[in-house]
């Protein structure tokens, strides 16, 4: 068994109103970032788990999404390995 770090992204379904995204969009614009076209807000769940293989780990996380992590009526989800995310280092916001 190996320990895998997964990332589950949960996103409001297209077409559904996303009031939080709307409010952030509005705030960014009034701070002068007029070039923003759209903002949508989702959740990211970082899961560390033991599994036989990468494929097994992904499968488990997918099952979790179906069962409990995502709301099938309002949300889409996406499972990926937390390693391998390209660009962007994790940054302390104040730095």
């Amino acid at each position, binding site marked *: 068994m190996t320990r895998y770090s997964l990332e589950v992204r949960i996103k409001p379904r297209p*077409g559904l*109103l996303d009031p939080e995204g709307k*409010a952030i969009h509005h705030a960014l614009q009034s701070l002068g970032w007029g070039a923003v076209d759209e903002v949508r807000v989702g959740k990211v769940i970082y899961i560390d788990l033991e599994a036989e293989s990468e494929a097994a780990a992904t499968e488990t996380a997918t099952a979790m999404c179906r*069962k*409990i992590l995502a*709301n*099938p009526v*309002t949300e889409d989800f996406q499972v990926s390995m937390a390693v391998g995310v390209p660009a962007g280092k994790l940054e302390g916001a104040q730095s």
Partner: protein
Amino acid sequence: MSTAEGAVAEDSVSPRAGDPPVTAEVVADHGLSVDEYERIRSIMGRDPTFTELGIFSAMWSEHCGYKNSKRLLRLLPTTAPWVIQGPGENAGVIDVGDGYALAFKIESHNHPSAVEPYQGAATGVGGILRDIFTMGARPVAILDSLRFGDLDSGRTRYLFSGVVSGVGDYGNCVGIPNIGGEVAFDRGYEGNPIVNAMCLGLMKREELITASASGVGNTLMAVGARTGRDGIHGATFASEELSEDSDESSRPQVQVGDPFTEKLLLEASLELIASGVITGIQDMGAAGITSSATEMAGRAGTGVELEMTAVPTREQGMTPYEILLSESQERMLVVVEKGLEGEVTRILEKWELEAAEIGRVTSDGLFRILEDGVVVASIPALPLTEGCPTYEREGIESEEIQALRAMDLSEHLIPEGDLTKTFMLLLSSPNVASKRWIYEQYDTTVRTATAVRPGGDAGVIRIRGTKRAVAATTDCNGRFVYLEPKRGAMIAAAEAARNLVCVGAVPTAVTNNLNFGNPLKPHIYYQLREAVLGMVDACETFETPVTGGNVSLYNETDGRSIYPTPVIGMVGVIEDVATITRQAFRHEGEDIVLLGANTNELGGSEYLYVTADLVAGAPPAVDLDAERALQQAVLKMIHERLLSSAHDCSEGGLACALAESALGDGEAPHGIDVDIDDDLRPVAALFGEAQGRIVVSCAPDRTDQVLRVAALHEVPARRIGTVQGPDDDFRISVRGASISARPAEMGAAYFDSLANRMEAPPTGT
């Protein structure tokens, strides 16, 4: 107003490119019968286009058209000198004195909550708030009336917790205190929860505004949120049965609530109304722009013309059909005096909201829809709102229920055994236990007017600047209605009135929510008819006219109907806040007096459900005149300042009512010493749910006076015991048997039960 027939001929409407042709199948998909479709054709003098069909289907849905309930609803008493606005507007309005008027209304969101509990409940609260502030009243209180299946199911816990946080998050964010409600858990609601939300709003009498599109040439403006593809055909969908595959993505888009926008819309709307630039305002609720525009035209006897490309949309490429039927939340339609549109825009801008001119009031009586100047729909407005066919169905009582009612309960009653154990079991049953887990998720104190918070018999909101207050409660025991609809409905109204008088309020008016199954089934229509008849009798006797309400039919899952549940939302007036009375015992050594009589009745009781898993027997008898006398006696006692506490007996009977008074809010519980010597079965005396009973406490030197007032009103009354100290036991003896418990243990059973049940592991959505 020109005649509809003449006007139709003027508009030539040809099918819109891209819209599906109107076939028999499409008509059926829109929930319209063959006869109804023929009626539409004769109104139009031609075949309707797809857009027009959508409009008819929404307006003639059960939700908007009240097809199956209108004839029954006409029987309800609706007038009294204090009624300012009866049924027909967004909310009822009554005079509450000192120049103030109270707008109030209840609304259901059962189907949306079954599909998505959080958003369903949240948008339910949003909708009822808008119904209140479109009358010109500022919302001051929310109540929520909820029902679910048994709590041991994971799905039920998911629905319950989602609904509670939806109700809470929305009301909390807008800043309207929750002052009460109710919740029941019973397998009769498995799969089809009931989510009814009630709102109260206060205004000065002269601030009242109604929703009509008057003044030919005036401008129609859409204000608030943009229109998206949410909940298209929600009104039609609200009128269909749920089935197994109800949460598939093929359903109409879920509506998502935005309480932040609602708060801005609330402030903007009240400012618009105060500014005098608008002549009418209405929420775009079920059936969206279509119903708001046609209803406003219908009330004014005018017509309206709307340009679809002017409606601000959230998504691109929306068709007129979609725009007209969208149920996106937090939107309003306002009618603006011609030339003052800029004033509206200015007010909306201050609140960081959009306003768009989308049409005008016309004189031709038509609901005319343009897309880029081309007429895509043109329908006489009046038949849309008034022409919906109404039906009187056949009603036959189900034999199965007759048999349940006639059942000999003695066969099913377990030996009485240990009464204390049964008592503790009942105290922790979710139907009796404290609802703290719910209302602690609600803001109950914002607006600094909540004199009685949830947890009492009724919530109370004082009116600042006066000595007055208003009280409100929602009540309905669906088991009673199921077992005998007419009596059950009378009990619902009687309980509501009792709850109001317990806090010292005079019952004044009613809003109601009829939650029933499929009315096309004779035994369901029977329930509906009988329940309405029961409500008629009770509201007449109590002089509490019905000023509005809501009908939610087709509450069925896989063909199984919910218990018929006519929720009564009743409001009352308190003239002097100094007389507000609460349910908790207050002083050691005071007398406990029972008003009303115990009986041997156990039918439909929580005791039967908990001990024998049974919903059977006849519901308790109710004598409306005796209820009325009890109400008046208690009010007189309260006004003469005789009482220290008052609490009505409902689920769990006398023993549970005494426990609730003894426990109070848990901070300073009391023991009691009570002796009940009735010649009745002990379980019936303790746990039976006989109607017409209120437990009061008073200083011993007031007891004679209390008994005298009761006698004067011919209300049975007797001293049954005394309030004891915090370290004393809670003791009730009944003919040799007895209950004896420590208040601390009772408190744990009563206050923590719901929270404990909700901590059980989740089982997914």
